[in-house]
């Protein structure tokens, strides 16, 4: 029963997202196209974080760094004259995976508070590194003068086409994560989160699996970064700022840990909320801050947990 409710909700959400371009065109509000495309890009990032945080219990507080790595991969290559998306995006993925491997190799060995602090520290390190490299704009960042070119496939300058590309990738990643978390690999990750002592006692050494999950999540977020830089046509180290990482975590939690739909809902709610509040006052963070605190204190199970059957592991 709850499975059916979930699947239905999922389908409804996807249909709504797919309907945005025609509706936006009808209402002559291109702003909505932009807004929901942005939401979907962050949904992909949140989805990747959900893999390690929601299902794996790894509280990574530096996940936004991969948004930065992916974005910089595209931006830097573009800056040096390489405009082809067919080259840029694979580099973005590989670079994110490698950074994740480097950070993960050290951090995944630790757990709990150490893991939180270390992932935060490493992501800030790269943030400061980004600021210190004047060639790529330093803390001002730089423009992406030409969007990633995919001759023969899709023109990213066409807002609607770009929108559906992001949509397609979102659906693809949702499906991918769904398969991952229910596979043998996913079961080990989830078991290690549920009961680490028991997992070791039956014969699993969680480290390798967790590291792999960390790398996969990093690579996926790198794709989101490549999408983001194309979306904004601008790139700054702020993509990697720890406050971004905090926002991503909130998207995962608000949406509901350990569900496929959760990150999408979470991204939508948080970004729509930010958009709404910032329309009210320039000091919207003073409202958002306490709201988030209240959400943590009282709405632990997230939005997906509101569906019938409550929050259940796996879909």
């Amino acid at each position, binding site marked *: 029963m709850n499975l059916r409710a979930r699947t239905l909700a999922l389908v409804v959400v996807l249909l709504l997202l797919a309907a945005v371009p025609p509706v936006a065109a009808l209402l002559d509000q291109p702003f909505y196209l932009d807004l929901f495309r942005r939401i979907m890009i962050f949904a992909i990032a949140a989805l990747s974080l959900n893999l390690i945080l929601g299902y794996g219990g790894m509280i990574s507080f530096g996940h936004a760094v991969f948004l930065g790595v992916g974005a910089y991969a595209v931006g830097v290559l573009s800056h040096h004259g390489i405009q082809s998306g067919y080259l840029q995006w694979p580099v973005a993925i590989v670079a994110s995976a490698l950074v994740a491997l480097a950070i993960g190799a050290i951090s995944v060995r630790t757990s709990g508070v150490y893991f939180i602090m270390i992932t935060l520290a490493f992501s800030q390190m790269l943030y400061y590194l980004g600021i210190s490299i004047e060639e790529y704009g330093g803390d001002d960042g730089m423009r992406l003068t030409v969007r990633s070119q995919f001759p023969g496939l899709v023109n990213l300058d066409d807002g609607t086409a770009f929108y559906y590309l992001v949509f397609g990738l979102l659906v693809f990643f949702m499906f991918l994560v769904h*398969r*991952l978390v*229910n*596979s*043998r*690999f*996913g*079961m*080990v990750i989830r*078991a290690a989160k*549920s*009961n680490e*002592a*028991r*997992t*070791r*006692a*039956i*014969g*699993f*050494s969680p480290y390798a*699996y967790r590291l*792999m999950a960390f790398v996969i999540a990093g690579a996926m977020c790198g794709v989101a970064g490549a999408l983001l830089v194309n979306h904004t046509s601008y790139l700054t180290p702020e993509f990697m700022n720890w406050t971004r990482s905090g926002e991503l975590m909130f998207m995962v939690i608000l949406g509901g840990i350990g569900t496929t739909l959760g990150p999408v809902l979470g991204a939508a709610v948080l970004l729509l909320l930010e958009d709404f509040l910032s329309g009210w006052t320039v000091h919207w963070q003073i409202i958002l801050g306490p709201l988030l605190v209240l959400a943590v204190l009282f709405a632990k199970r997230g939005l997906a947990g509101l569906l019938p059957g409550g929050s*259940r*592991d796996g879909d």
Partner: protein
Amino acid sequence: MATDALLDVRGLAKSFGALRATDGVDLDVREGETHAIIGPNGAGKTTLIGQLAGNLRPDAGRIRFAGEDITALAAPARSRKGLARSFQITSIYREFTALDNVALAVQAHAGHSFRFWRPARSEPELRDPARAILEEVGLGARADVRAANLAHGEQRQLEIAMVLATRPRLMLLDEPVAGMGTDESQRMVRFLGGLKGKRTMVLVEHDMDAVFTLADRISVLVYGRIIASGTPEEIRANPEVRTAYLGEETEG
């Protein structure tokens, strides 16, 4: 010198600050036997089990399993060698079903788990043995119940099922009937009795009925040392044991 011992422990020692929790333990467990470890509260049974299972590193001494020195091996490696353990305080996957729980234990010994696509729940090589083991321990009808919703006694049975699912050469059972009512513990004791001879078991227990029913040999742990080791009759008759332990314990 029990050279045919499956588990051979020599001079094991572990201290926590000034407390000598394990103070030079020698222990040997022969293949196929059921060996019980008893002792008053605070004797250091949990610490000993922790070191045998690989959760605690001993300060001194060595542990040989099937002829191989495993002292430096961590818990997952020991499990892969065939040394399985159950926990005194039930340690299962509460959000997963009973079947999922056991299937995970099967999975840990069914090749590597770097498989990313096929749902684990659809693999007969995992589900079938898991179901069979659940039947064996008497939880067949409860396979699809969330572990958190099982009764306490059923959860203890699930613990045992998970141990069995790893196809162990030696089972380290930490108070298997802890917290069980009379009926349940009798059923568990009967079940474990059915494993006698087929599996090697090291049993840490307080319940004297269970111990004397099941054990081929008993070792008595007091203040971190084994003060006596022998058949149940020998232990019953041993005056040291009586004073140190049996004289004080009247119920399990």
